[in-house]
């Protein structure tokens, strides 16, 4: 059986507003914490953008290595990174 990783929803499917974590639980002792916790900025990015950042860290921040790994040109990868930075700045503000 293939175990598929569940995608964390970050926006409300009804009104598109950013979601917050309102309940956290311990899988060992079943303690439940309720509250309202904003999701970290990186988690609010799309799965594709998160994967890109993950790869960026794995290649020690080398866009050239990333371009070779992704089979894309250097400016394409650089543009993608700049687009993600813009999204992060928008999310932070």
């Amino acid at each position, binding site marked *: 059986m293939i175990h598929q990783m569940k995608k964390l929803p970050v926006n409300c499917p009804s009104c598109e507003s950013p979601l917050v974590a309102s309940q956290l639980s311990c899988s060992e002792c079943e303690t439940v914490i309720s509250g309202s916790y904003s999701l970290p900025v990186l988690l609010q990015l799309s799965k594709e953008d998160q994967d890109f950042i993950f790869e960026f860290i794995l290649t020690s921040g080398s866009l050239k290595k990333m*371009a*070779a790994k992704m*089979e*894309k*040109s*250097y*400016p*394409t990868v*650089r*543009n993608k990174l*700049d*687009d993600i930075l813009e999204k992060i700045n928008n999310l932070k503000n």
Partner: protein
Amino acid sequence: MKTLLFKPFEKYSEQKLLIAGVIAMLIGVLFTYILNCRFVGVFQMIFDDITVIQSIIDSLIITSCLTIFLFISGKLIYKKTRLIDIIVTALVSFIPFYILPFFNINDTLMESTKEIRNYASPDMVVQMPLETLLPLIGFSLFGLIVLIWCITLLYNGFKTAANAKGIKAMVIFGIAIALADIASRYLIFHLN
């Protein structure tokens, strides 16, 4: 295939694109010389006797004009624009134009144009046989397709090099290629 024909700049490294562009330019220079064609601007080709040196200078002027104007425009939009990405855009986007000289094998179009000139009066024009016009009509239609292809390549290359988005970038791109065309026509007319 779509990427190769219209968006090679997104996939292939600048080294590969530069090699492809330079080889294509050299082949293009050779065929424009053999087939008596001349690029006298970014978007203008004429049929004329030409020397190899003239053909090389024409190509260099056109590539330089495109590079200079697109690079300045790219820098205005995006500070990280690299010169090498603009050079490969100018070189690779011109490749489809090198198909056009093949329409003039055996001086077909040059002769056709000369023949049409013989009918260049209101009385004579109605007597012009359709066969005289056919090669030029075919060339014009194909030329239009090639022109659209080249502009698409130029824009996609510019978009990738300068991370260009939106209407403002399209307007700046339009002005840049128009200026490159005017400058290349002026330089080729006066220098070559």
